[in-house]
C-alpha cells in the first residue's frame, strides 16, 4: 500500500497522459465520491459551529446557561408543543430549567469535538511511534510492545474508565489540573488515549513489518542510512495513508464514547453541556417531551455518520484496491 505502488500499479487515467502525484490522484478520487464530499461539509459545519460557538449564540440571541421560567409550565415541563419550540428557542427548551437546547447543543459540540480531536491526536502519536518502533526493531522490542498491546486490549476498558473516574479526577485535581470539568475532560481524554493507541499501533506495526522488507528500504539500509533516517524518511511517509483512515474512523468513535460516558454520568459535570449529558437527561422525558430526546440524538447520529462516511471516502481514495467505484 505504499504510494509509489498506487501511482505505478493503477493506470486509471485514459487519454491524455499526464503525470499526477499520488495525493492528487487520491484527491480526485475523493472528489468523485459524492457522499464523502457531503459528509465532509457536514463535519466542517459542525467544527465551524463549535469553534464559533460564542459568536453563533450571540447572533441567535441565546445562551446555554440562561434559565427561562416562562418557557416552562407548572410541572416544570416545556410550555408548548414539541418541547416549546418557538422563535426564541429554535429547538425548544430543557425541561426543569428552561435553558435553550440549541445553545446547549452548540456548546456541547465543542466538548464532544474537543474530546474527539485531542484523543485521536494522542492515540495517533502514541500508536504510530510504538507501532513503528515495534515493526522496525522487531525481536525483543517488538515482543515487549506486542505483549503490552495485547494486555491493554484485554482490559475491560469501559468498566475501568467508569470505576476509576472519581479517584483519578481527584488525583488530577490534586496534581494541579483545575477542579471540575477540566479535570474530568483531562481524565476522559487520557484514558481514551491510554486504551485507544493499541489499535493504531497494531496496524502501523503490521504496515511497518511489510514495508521494511521492500526494495527501497533495503536500498536505504544498504547505503548506510541510520535508524532516524529509516523511520522518518523511509517508513513514516509510506504509512500515512492508513493512518489518516484510522484517524477519520476513530474520531467519531471517541465522540460517541464521550457521549456514552456523560450519559452514564461519569462525563461532564453541570452546568456545562455535552451531547451525552443532554441525551442522558432527555431519556427520562421520552414520554413527556420526546423532542428533547430527538435533538441531541439526531445531532450525534449526524456527526458520527458524517465522520464515518468521510473516513470511508478517504480510505477508498487512498487505497484504490478497495475502490468501490472500480470494483462496482
Amino acid at each position, binding site marked *: 500500500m505504499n504510494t509509489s505502488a498506487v501511482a505505478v500499479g493503477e493506470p486509471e487515467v485514459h487519454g491524455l497522459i499526464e503525470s499526477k502525484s499520488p495525493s492528487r490522484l487520491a484527491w480526485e478520487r475523493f472528489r468523485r465520491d459524492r457522499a464523502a464530499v457531503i459528509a465532509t461539509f457536514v463535519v466542517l459545519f459542525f467544527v465551524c459551529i463549535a469553534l464559533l460557538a460564542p459568536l453563533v449564540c450571540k447572533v441567535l440571541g441565546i445562551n446555554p*446557561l*440562561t*434559565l427561562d*421560567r416562562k418557557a*416552562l*409550565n*407548572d*410541572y*416544570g*415541563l416545556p410550555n408548548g408543543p414539541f418541547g416549546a419550540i418557538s422563535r426564541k428557542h429554535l429547538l425548544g427548551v430543557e*425541561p*426543569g*430549567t*428552561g*435553558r435553550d437546547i440549541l445553545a446547549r447543543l452548540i456548546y456541547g459540540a465543542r466538548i464532544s469535538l474537543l474530546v474527539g480531536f485531542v484523543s485521536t491526536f494522542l492515540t495517533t502519536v502514541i500508536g504510530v511511534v510504538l507501532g513503528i518502533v515495534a515493526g522496525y526493531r522487531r525481536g525483543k522490542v517488538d515482543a515487549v510492545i506486542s505483549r503490552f498491546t495485547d494486555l491493554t486490549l484485554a482490559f475491560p476498558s469501559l468498566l475501568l474508565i467508569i470505576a476509576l473516574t*472519581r479517584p483519578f479526577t481527584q488525583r488530577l485535581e490534586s496534581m494541579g489540573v483545575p*477542579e*471540575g470539568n477540566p479535570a474530568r475532560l483531562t481524565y476522559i481524554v487520557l484514558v481514551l488515549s491510554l486504551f485507544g493507541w493499541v489499535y493504531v499501533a497494531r496496524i502501523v506495526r503490521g504496515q511497518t513489518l511489510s514495508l521494511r522488507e521492500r526494495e527501497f528500504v533495503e536500498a536505504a539500509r544498504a547505503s548506510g542510512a541510520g535508524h532516524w533516517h529509516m523511520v522518518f524518511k523511509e517508513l513514516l511517509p509510506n504509512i500515512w495513508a492508513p493512518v489518516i483512515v484510522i484517524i477519520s474512523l476513530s474520531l467519531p468513535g471517541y465522540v460517541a464514547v464521550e457521549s456514552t460516558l456523560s450519559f452514564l*454520568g461519569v462525563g461532564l*459535570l*453541570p*452546568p456545562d453541556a455535552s451531547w451525552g*449529558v443532554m441525551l*442522558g*437527561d432527555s*431519556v*427520562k*422525558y421520552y*414520554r*413527556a*417531551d420526546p423532542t428533547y430526546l430527538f435533538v441531541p440524538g439526531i445531532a450525534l447520529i449526524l456527526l458520527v455518520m458524517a465522520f464515518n462516511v468521510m473516513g470511508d471516502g478517504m480510505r477508498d481514495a487512498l487505497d484504490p484496491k478497495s475502490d468501490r467505484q472500480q470494483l462496482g
Partner: protein
Amino acid sequence: MKHRIIGVLGVALAASLVASACGSSSSSSSDTAASNDTVAAGAADTGTPTTGGTIHILSQLEQITHLDPQRNYTGSDLAFVGSTMQRALTSYAYASGTEGSKLVADLATDTGTPTEGGKVWSFTLRGGATYEDGSEVTCADIAYGVSRVFATDIIVDGPTYAITYLDIPKDADGNSNYPGPYKATADQQALFDKAVACSSDGKTITFNLNRVVADFNYTTTLLAFSPVPKAKDTGEKYDNAPVSSGPYKIKSYEPGKSLVLVRNDKWSKASDPVRHAYVDSYVYEFALDPAVIDERLMADAGDDQYAVSDAGLQPENLQTVFNDDKFKDRRQDSYDPYISFTAFNAKTVSCVEVRRAVYLGLDREALRTAGGGPYTGDFADGFIKPALADDYAPNKMPDGLNKDGTPNIEAAKAALDEAKTKCPDVYAKATGDGLKFFHPDTPTWQKNISIWIESMKAVGIVIKPTAVEPSKYYPTVQNDKTDYDIARGAWGPDWPNASTMIPELFLTSGGFNLTRNGDDPAYKQFETDTKAALNELDRTAQGTKWKALNQFLVNQLWSLPGTFLKAQDIWGSKVGNAYKWASSGSYLFGELYVKQ
C-alpha cells in the same frame, strides 16, 4: 441526641435527597392546619377491605436499609417493618388523614402511665403476643431490645433516644456507661436493669428517665422499643433475619433482588388491636430503575396492578399522571413530613449578610419548578412544618425576600455590599474563590446546581459545586473533615414535637447538624434557649418557645429553609388502602389490601 445517621433514603426523592433519620412525623393531634396535611388531589380508596392476595412493592433501593428493629430509622422502612413484622409498645393509629397521628397502644394495654411528672413511665403488657416460632413475647425481650440500642458499635444507624433519655450515668464525653448487652459486665448490666425494669409478674415494664419527658410514649412508637428474644439475637447479622412478632415473617430475603413476606401463622389477631393484615404475602422488589417503576405503575399490567412504590413519582412523569383522568383513582398528591434546607458551614460562611444575600438572590422558584413546580411543595418559612400545629407560627422573613420565590437581586446585592465592610474575608471568598457546594450526584441535582450557579452569578457570588456519589452523600457531609461551605439536606420530625426538629438540626449534639454553628457568637444563647424549650413541661409554653426559636433561626440563617415537601404517588389499580400514613409520610404497607 448524639448518634450516627447514615441516611440515604431514595436516590432521587422528589426535589431533594431526603435525610433518613426521620422516624415518624405527623401532624399534631390538635391539628388546625389539617388542610395542609391531607390529600390535595386524587383519593385513596378506603372501601371495604378484603383478605388475600399479594402486594408488590417496587423499590429503587438495594435493600431495606435496616430490618433490625433497633436500627430501623427511615419513614418508609419504619412503616413497612412496623406494620408487618415488628410490634412496639405503642403505635400510631392505622388510619388515613390526621387520625393516623393519634397514639394507640400496641404491645401495651394503654399508651403508658407517667409518674413523677413524666420522669418514670410504665407500660402494662397486653400478653398473648408471640414470635414466629410460637414463643411468647416477654417483658424481658422488650427490655433486651432497648438495651441493644446502647451497643453503638454494632447497632448503628438507629434512633438513640433510649440513650439520651434513660437514667443511666454518662461519662464526661456524654457516652453512656452501659455499653450494650454484648459487652456489659454484671455491674454495667445492673445499671441498665435499674433504668428499665420488669415487674416480678412480667406484666409491667418501667422506664426510669433522667429527666421529664412528657411525650415519652411517642418515643416508644419507634421500633427501637420492639422486643428481641435474647437467645435469637445474632448481633450485626440480626439485620438480615430478625425474628418477627407481627403478622408476617420473612420467607426469603436477597438484598439487591427481593424480600418476600408470608403470613406468620403464630400471630393472633386477638393479641393485636392495631394490625389487620389483609393480604397473604408481600413481595418487595429491589434495585429497580425509578423510571421503570413509574412506567410499570402507569402501565398497570399483570402483577403491577397489585403494586405500589416506596418512593414518589419522578418529576418528569407528573404531567402525564396528573393531566390524565384515567389515573384519577390511583394517584395522590400529599404533603410528606419533610422540610428541605440548605445548610451553611457557619465556620467558613460566618457572615450573616452573605448568607442573607444568598437567600435573597436565590431563584427558589426555578428550583421548585425543576422539581415539578407546585408539586415540589410550598416555600418553607422556617424549620417547623405547619402540620406541627402546636409549634408552628408563620415567621417574619428577611426584608426583601420575594414571596413567590423569585430572586430579589437588588436586595441581595445590597446585603452583599454590607458584607463587604462587615466581613471582608467571607465577602472575598464568596465573590472570589467561591463557596464550595456539596450535592448528591443525582439527575435532579445536576439541574438544581445549575440553577444555583446561575442565580448566584447574578448576585456576584461564585458557587463551586462538588458532586458526591448519592450513597456516600450524607456520610460525606456529616464527616467533620469535609470542607464544604454549603450542603443540602432534608429532615422530618420523629414525633409531633419540634423537639425532634430544631435540636436535631441545630444543636452541636444534634443528629443531623450540618451547620457547624458551635463557634458562632449567637450559638451559646441559642443552646440555652433550646435546652430550656426541651425541658419545658407545659406543652403550650413549649410550643411558644419553639416558635421563638424558629424565628431566631430564620434571622440567623445558619441554614436556608427550602421547601415544605410534597410527594406524588401512583399505585396499581387493584390496591386498596393506598393512603399516606400521617406518621411516616409513606404508605401504611401492612394495611394495603387487594381489591377483588
